[in-house]
């Protein structure tokens, strides 16, 4: 992998409290990933964190009006243009949070196609941990993302006891596995339909096909 152009890692975190354990998980997953990427010869990594709470109203407005505010647009661009993505959401009512899903809903079509994604979620007890596999994983599969097999769920108890959940180890393992996946995946350039327009004759020909 080229060490010339910086590697862009976007992070979506959907916790709403301050401080938030979801943000904490996102940060730890990000650090572990960046460290592991270094081992794969990736030089400079630019991390762009999107905290959904900062643009919660803008996300709602985007759903209603169909366009993003400038503040939201820079975040959507960062996600769409990232080489890889780390996501972390609290589990509410057996699934990702509504706010998290609304942000995903306003991403441009195909924004995450072929983008490697590392999944993280938090919840009150470990009994919510399957939300990653029954909610997050199908969502990102639908979006055509390259979902990392190893994901991390952090329950409240995991933050209090090193032994109970071995959270640190799990984060490290997820970061290492994600970095391996990322470094093996091609970095795909997005096509700008306003720059590479389909010539009209081709559209007419398609109709006759």
């Amino acid at each position, binding site marked *: 992998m080229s060490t010339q152009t910086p590697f862009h890692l976007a992070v979506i975190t959907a916790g709403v409290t301050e401080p938030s354990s979801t943000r904490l998980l996102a940060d730890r997953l990000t650090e572990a990933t960046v460290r592991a990427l270094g081992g794969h010869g990736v030089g400079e990594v630019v991390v762009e964190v999107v905290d959904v709470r900062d643009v919660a109203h803008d996300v709602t*407005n985007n759903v209603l*009006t169909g*366009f993003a505010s400038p503040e939201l647009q820079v975040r959507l661009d960062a996600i769409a243009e990232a080489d890889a993505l780390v996501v972390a959401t609290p589990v509410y009512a057996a699934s990702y949070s509504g706010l998290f899903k609304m942000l995903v809903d306003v991403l441009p079509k195909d924004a995450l196609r072929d983008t490697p994604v590392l999944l993280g979620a938090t919840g009150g007890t470990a009994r919510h941990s399957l939300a990653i596999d029954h909610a997050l994983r199908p969502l990102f599969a639908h979006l055509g993302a390259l979902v990392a097999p190893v994901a991390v769920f952090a329950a409240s108890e995991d933050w209090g006891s090193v032994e109970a959940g071995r959270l640190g180890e799990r984060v490290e393992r997820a970061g290492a596995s994600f970095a391996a996946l990322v470094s093996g995946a091609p970095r795909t350039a997005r096509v700008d339909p*306003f720059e590479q*327009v389909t010539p*009209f004759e081709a*559209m007419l020909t398609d*109709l006759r096909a």
Partner: protein
Amino acid sequence: MQFGIFTVGDVTTDPTTGRTPTEHERIKATVAIAKKAEEVGLDVFATGEHHNPPFAAPANPPVLLAAVAAQTERLVLSTSTTLITTNDPVRIAQDYAYLQHLSDGRMDLMLGRGNTGPVYPWFGKDIRDGIPLAIENYALLHRLWREDVVDWQGKYRTPLQGFTSTPRPLDGIPPFVWHGSIRSPEIAEQAAYYGDGFFSNHIFWPASHTKQMVSLYRRRFEHYGHGNADQAIVGLGGQVFMRKNSQDAVREFRPYFDNAPVYGHGPSLEEFTRQTPLTVGSPQEVIERTLGFRDYVGDYQRQLWLVDHAGLPLETVLEQLDILGEEVVPVLRREFAALKPAHVPDAPTHAGRVAAAGGAHDTTVYADGDDDVTGASPDPSARTQTTVEVTK
């Protein structure tokens, strides 16, 4: 440059009174608004096409536009938009050519796809075919106005054999067509390919969308050899509410904004005016904002404003038109004209296009054969014999 208004014909409750106009009131108000537009010196009135509540816009815009044509003398009548996807292109060709004759050429039309999913199946279509429908239907419409006898076969309607669309375009000049789209590069490409006009709705969305679409259209207009990029024909929408004092405009418009279809209960008035071309304020603020559009689309030919939506009472709408006619448009005419280089064309008009074609040609197609009561499709070989040169 042309200035005018466009309406979507929404029937919306006035949030300040709780009263909702009847369809009859809304339809009559629309005619009154169009007549007022001419009276205050505006150039264009355009109507939307709708098939469902909460709209009382015509299902076939020429019905309304013919009535307005009969009650006006100068106003150019247009659409915002005519649905190129769900209408039969044969009916568009015929109804709009008829309107062209009735209005003595004071008309053009803007084609759009329509973004309301449920409308498509009412007319046997599927919204997922929106772009191919727009491409195929317009390719046929374009021919129907330019060829007296058309043989045609496509995906979306029954084939045509030896078909003549009547009436033929007035003076042999097909109605001018604008293509409207918010974000689909295919439609900017289509407008450029034919050398038609491109209209950016420009309301409800940020200026960046408009800039992107117009610059693509201009670039491709030049690519297809219709002229330089800055000679392409561009129209823009806009949305304004004005009072002498800016604060009065904001205070009066806010309840309409907060409850409006499309953006109501979403962003604040302040956010929306910052993020889109909506301008709520003094006439001077509208003048400055409108002149600023030129900074990102270049010199353009037509500016239409939305002034009659969201439940605003007729009386208020007529006051807005007075302000546009008296205080805004005269200044904008002067300022835009002073800025426009000589090689940038004016907005296309029927008279201008007749002159550019070397004069008027009546292109009436007469039925041949013995049956001159019901008529028959003319033989293609007889085509040259049915064109009569008229010297004026």
